[in-house]
């Protein structure tokens, strides 16, 4: 679907309150949308809050990742140093650096989809599965809200919650993301408020519990927002939490440092149910290429980042959430 056709289609479906599903890649090159009732027939399975288009199945055993082949540290360090150069030069204030890791899986992508415990998840045509803990935007009754997630910690370490909330590097990174997302909502909305700043969620994985730090930012839209839903979504992207600030320059640096298109990873997906919009950022993402599986992960890099800690965070985020 071409960009203009996509945006026009969403504006039109929004205008006539037709429910639809949408998926937009990080590079904004291959957006797609379908009427919501046609998703399952197109081999797309989705859970978005209370909405499901499939019958839940219990796999024989929860899907597990049995092997990880992570990018070599020296390779990661080269990209990290490239990003540090630009941080010191003032070209970027925060940059999300990600890489794919080859993994071995028990089961296939559909098994992962059914066994992953997440309020937002997507299985897409045998190409990828994603079980995102991060909501992107939600629009209910002319109020737009976004929930940027920045900060991950192992919940089982002593005083984990206190440590991550008191960590100044995490605070600065999170603050930058909040200012960025305030800006993005301000493109369309007024009366922007940071309603919750750095609240904690717990995510269960087979091996450990993780803490995630998020904020809630809201704004008020004009009442005719549905008529320009396509334009509204398009101008919000890429999602601030997975690129960094300022966006244009930061995305140029990402393209050079990662040297590999992200595709639908770190894009967004969601639904319009005829009245409201619910969406998620496509992180925690496994893709299949021929017979091989790749898990994409990463984290935000700032001038205060430590290379080996960021590398560890990339590895720590390789998991399938399960109870």
């Amino acid at each position, binding site marked *: 679907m071409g960009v203009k056709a996509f945006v026009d289609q969403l504006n039109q479906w929004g205008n006539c309150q037709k429910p639809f599903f949408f998926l937009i890649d990080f590079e904004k090159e291959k957006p797609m949308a379908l009427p919501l009732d046609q998703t399952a027939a197109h081999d797309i399975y989705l859970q978005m809050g209370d909405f499901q288009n499939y019958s839940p199945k219990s796999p024989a055993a929860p899907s597990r990742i049995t092997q990880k082949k992570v990018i070599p540290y020296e390779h990661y360090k080269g990209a990290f140093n490239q990003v540090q150069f630009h*941080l010191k030069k003032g*070209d970027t*204030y925060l940059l999300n650096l990600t890489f794919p890791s080859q993994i071995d899986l028990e089961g296939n992508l559909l098994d992962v989809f059914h066994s992953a415990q997440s309020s937002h998840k997507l299985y897409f045509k045998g190409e990828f599965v994603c079980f995102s803990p991060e909501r992107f935007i939600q629009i209910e009754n002319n109020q737009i809200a976004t929930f940027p997630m920045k900060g991950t910690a192992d919940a089982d370490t002593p005083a984990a919650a206190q440590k991550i909330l008191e960590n100044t590097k995490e605070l600065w990174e999170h*603050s930058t993301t*909040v200012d960025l997302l305030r800006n993005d909502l*301000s493109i369309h909305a007024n009366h922007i408020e940071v309603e919750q700043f750095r609240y904690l969620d717990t995510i269960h994985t087979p091996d450990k519990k993780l803490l995630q730090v998020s904020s809630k930012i809201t704004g008020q839209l004009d009442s005719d927002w549905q008529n320009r839903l396509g334009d509204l979504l398009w101008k919000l992207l890429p999602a*601030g939490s997975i690129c960094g600030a300022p966006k244009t320059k930061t995305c140029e640096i990402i393209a050079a440092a990662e040297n590999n298109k992200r595709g639908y990873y770190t894009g967004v997906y969601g639904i319009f149910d005829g009245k409201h919009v619910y969406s998620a950022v496509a992180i925690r993402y496994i893709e299949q290429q021929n017979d091989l599986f790749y898990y994409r992960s990463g984290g935000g890099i700032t*001038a205060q980042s430590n290379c080996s800690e960021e590398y560890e965070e990339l590895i720590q985020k390789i998991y399938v959430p399960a109870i």
Partner: protein
Amino acid sequence: MAESLPRIILIDANDSFVHNIKDRFLRLGHQLEILPYADYDPNRPLDADALILSPGPGHTSEYPKWFQLLQQIEPHIPVLGICLGFQLLATHYGAKLNPMEQVVHGQQQKCTQLSWHPLWENIPQTFTIGRYHSWEIDPNSLPETLLPLAQAEDACLMAIAHKTLPHLGVQFHPESFMCPNGTQLFKNFLALIPWE
């Protein structure tokens, strides 16, 4: 019909915080016109009652058209430079920029006023700011024409004003959620625009 308001143009150095500035001005009942740096043509005079030079990535030397603009504008037009825009104003008047040993991105800190100025009306002597920068003005390079107005906890210069013209700059980000006095600061800037 709404009363006519001053025309305020913000020149956007492709930054991702300019809509936060726009939102603060909207709360004060003022629209900002956002003009992307790439679209600004120095050969066509800007018909503005006030100008805002935005934050943005990189170094002032990457924005030659802004220096042309500052040479061309009517001197009585109020100009507010924010972050990169502040550095631009300062270097236009002869100050020098240094790379910082410790860059500061996304940090909330205290800022203290050094001298009185209408920009500080109803803002406490020490107030909270949000900082995003990796270059700083060399305080020893500040020309006689510029008055230092405020400094941060690390003594880094945070605000300047031209001694005779309505040209002001702040190194911090008044539009940040980390700067609760930001809307008041913009209100004080609006008060400097001659308007009837």
